[in-house]
């Protein structure tokens, strides 16, 4: 791309893995994420989903926002911002976090990597610079640097992911427990590997200096060839994360800072993430509002549903009876789960009605005609997909 390109300002940026990804994106199925050209899928979305559940597959997380937060006050600053107790994160450990407005409405979720006592990495789906800079206010020794474009990150997920990394020569990778961070020498530099992911399955995320991205990709793919490695895009990610009952922005929650209408955003309690809110730690953004909400109970509760029949309940309303007279909630994400063989969904349901009957009114099309059906929903307490290998240390080879 040269500066003489009159459309330079509109063209999507390319991630550090683009040179390899474009070769494998046989269907030219591109979408965008944070200004980057990003694969919707590469060959076949369903096949890629099955690689995540059956072999292993990579997801380019370069466009995910990464911030380095450094300084003596870094921990205190993060602790003031997020709802979880950052002090409890061990060295070389990762923690899932959310952060809220003073009204306790959720701004975003992300992960905090504790890389040293005074150095952290925060990752999140949407750019967060302004909020971070505001959060720094009042702390003396803390700097926030956007390192999104400096670090290349690749998520490797699936049952053969550990075997692939072992084959790649990452000795001791099998000792990593979930949320552990390990370091390996790589071409004179360091490859950071965390046992994290967004699929609910066994998986790792690989972090490397941008210049070494292609070398790392090539070594990983050479090692993974016998283990069914395959890139996957947004479509397969969305399937896998829903089976794991992980939330997505603009699906389960509307980012508070982008919400126009009153309470069309959510609180962590509404999203069933109350376990992330620690009232025992010092003050944090949204504390008093969240404390009030905890005592009162959330208006809505994000609920896992198993729905009869096999028509995905995308966009459905939830009713308290089969007659569909009283509307009590709405489906946020829905799909047929090929692994669990169930018609699964996440839904926001008015907390007062959770214990009663739940019915979804499902619309679907068949050769241009619209059909509808009312289907009984059953609440599930556990994620739809949670294989033992995702927690096992050392993990199995497949």
């Amino acid at each position: 791309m040269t500066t003489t390109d009159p459309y330079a300002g509109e063209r999507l940026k390319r991630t550090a893995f683009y040179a390899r990804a474009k070769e494998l994106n046989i269907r030219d199925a591109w979408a965008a994420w944070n200004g980057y050209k990003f694969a919707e899928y590469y060959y076949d979305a369903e096949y890629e989903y099955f690689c995540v559940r059956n072999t292993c597959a990579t997801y380019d997380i370069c466009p995910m926002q990464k911030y380095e937060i450094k300084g003596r006050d870094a921990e205190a600053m993060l602790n003031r911002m997020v709802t979880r107790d950052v002090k409890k994160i061990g060295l070389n450990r990762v923690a899932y976090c959310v952060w809220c407005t003073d009204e306790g409405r959720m701004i975003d979720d992300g992960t905090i990597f504790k890389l040293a006592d005074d150095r952290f990495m925060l990752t999140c789906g949407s750019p967060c610079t302004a909020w971070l800079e505001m959060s720094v206010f009042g702390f003396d020794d803390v700097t926030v640097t956007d390192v999104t474009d400096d670090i290349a990150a690749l998520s490797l997920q699936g049952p053969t992911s550990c075997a692939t990394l072992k084959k790649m020569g990452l000795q001791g990778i099998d000792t990593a427990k979930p949320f552990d961070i390990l370091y390996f020498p790589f071409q004179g530099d360091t490859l950071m590997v965390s046992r994290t992911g967004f699929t609910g399955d066994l998986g790792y995320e690989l972090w490397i200096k941008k210049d070494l991205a292609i070398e790392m990709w090539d070594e990983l793919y050479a090692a993974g060839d016998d283990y069914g490695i395959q890139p996957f895009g947004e479509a397969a990610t969305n399937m896998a994360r829903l089976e794991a009952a992980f939330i997505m922005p603009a699906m389960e929650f509307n980012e508070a800072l982008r919400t126009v209408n009153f309470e069309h955003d959510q609180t962590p309690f509404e999203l069933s993430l109350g376990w992330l809110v620690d009232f025992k730690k010092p003050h944090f953004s949204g504390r008093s509002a969240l404390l009030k909400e905890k005592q009162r109970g959330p208006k809505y509760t994000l609920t896992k549903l198993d729905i009869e029949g096999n028509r995905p309940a995308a966009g459905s309303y939830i009713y308290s009876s089969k007659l569909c007279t009283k509307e009590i909630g709405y489906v946020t994400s829905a799909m047929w789960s090929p692994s669990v063989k169930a018609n699964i969904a996440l839904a926001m349901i008015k907390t007062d009605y959770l214990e009663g009957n739940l019915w979804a009114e499902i619309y679907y099309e068949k050769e241009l005609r619209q059909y509808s059906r009312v289907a009984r929903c059953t609440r599930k307490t556990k994620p739809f997909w949670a294989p033992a290998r995702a927690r096992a240390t050392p993990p199995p080879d497949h």
Partner: protein
Amino acid sequence: MSNYDAIIIGAGHNGLTNAAYLAKAGLNVVVVEKNEYIGGAAVTRELQEGWKYSNCSYVCSMMRQAIHRDLDLAKHGLILVPYLGNINFGDGDERLLSYHNEEAAHLELKRHSPHDADAMHRFQTDLTRYSQLIRKTLMRTPPDPTSFRPRDIMELLYLAKQFWKLGEKELYEYVRFFTMSAAEYLEDYFENDLIKAAMASPGIIGTALGVYSPGSSYILLHHVMGDVDGSIGAWGLARGGMGAISNAIAGAVNEFGGEIRTNSGVQKILVENRKAVGVVLENGDEIRARIVVSNLDAKRTFTRIMDKNDLPDGIYDKAKNFKIRGSSGKVNIALSGMPKFTGVPENRYVARGGQVFTGSLETMERAYDCWKHGRWSDDPFIESVIPSAWDPTVAPPGQHWMSNFVQYCPAELSDGPWTPEKRDQFGESVIKKIEGYSPGFRDLIVHMEVRTPYEIEKEIGLTEGNIFQGELTIDQLFFNRPFPGYGQYRMPVKNMYMCGSSTHPGGGVSSVCGANAAREILMDLRRTNTVPEDDFYDE
């Protein structure tokens, strides 16, 4: 010795499904299995260390999702993984690749024949219409057309309604379709021989018919009416091999308190006062129960483990004449690497998938001629798949195994009984054929399991090694399966039932026969039904 409510003979996937639903209803059930392992023809065995063969059945599409979901087989370790396209090898250099992607599939057909590429849409549409109708009958007990019981009349009316919905023209087409040969049927659509041959091949699989034999078009349908997650006609692999299906169902049996006994072959079904009362095992042990359910094929059930004198007149002869001719063999090959095939692009998705050594309609018909003369085919039709290309659990990393379904291979040879030498010669004919398309294939072979109808019958118990427990011809389908008048899982001896592929809707790893039989049994025993209704994408 404890008394059981039900004894199920044979721990194949239908027997286990039957047991699971009976146990779920609270019955005290025991499944007795002659082999030391369970699964029957849905089995995974490690005959060479590190390689896990699906020794008999090898791909899955018919498994009813409603059962998979209802028994929570995912919890018991079952996951079905779809595999991407396959390659049909013509007699010469011609290759027909069937891609999963619609656009790619169309372009590939167009390369062979622009006419056929267009005709494929009409063909798929017609086939989908036929299969939709058949699919609706799968998890329903066929009505007895001679009965005046309200239930049978209601069911006949239901069927009439479904047929009527097709419209007049399609009704005629349907009847025609049922009686035609696969090759003739395809003449209506296609002009290219390799395309015709590729489309016709499901019409002969597992059956002692040729592509030009009347009735083979229905079998074609039988192979495309399954689905994987709503994608009708798609085929998948069970992760860990086909045994994973049986093991998962066995997990459900155990969960519901059922018992499974291996190394417990049945010598005889005990009949007293025209009622089945139990079984005598080969070791002489006697087990008694309120009902006995046979998952063995109809011929084996009535001619091998029942006393002719215990049966009403005519049943023995019907069983003896039950059409269950062996027509296929299976060759499982462990390979030290991925074989390369000539004339095929190095497309990592399609080149590794399935290989169908189709030849042409002529080659397939000549292969059938050999069978008629009591010989295995000189130039066989082979349907292959390399499960290890998709499933990381069935071979060591970087190594593979290839499942080869071979047709034709007779149960009885014209030159005397099967011997180990003849079996090896049969295996050699398969290697030779594959080698023709994959030079150096032989050098990759680490281990081989060659199974002729003789081995399949001896080990699995399928008469003549017929994979469907009886041919899927119209005289043996629906309310005629296994015999006219016995299409509702109840057998001529009181308290005795059948639950295997000899019953409606026939062969395939579907679990349907076992589930349907359980529903009938529970009705007779006045228990609450535990069998779910079918679930359709095409409702």
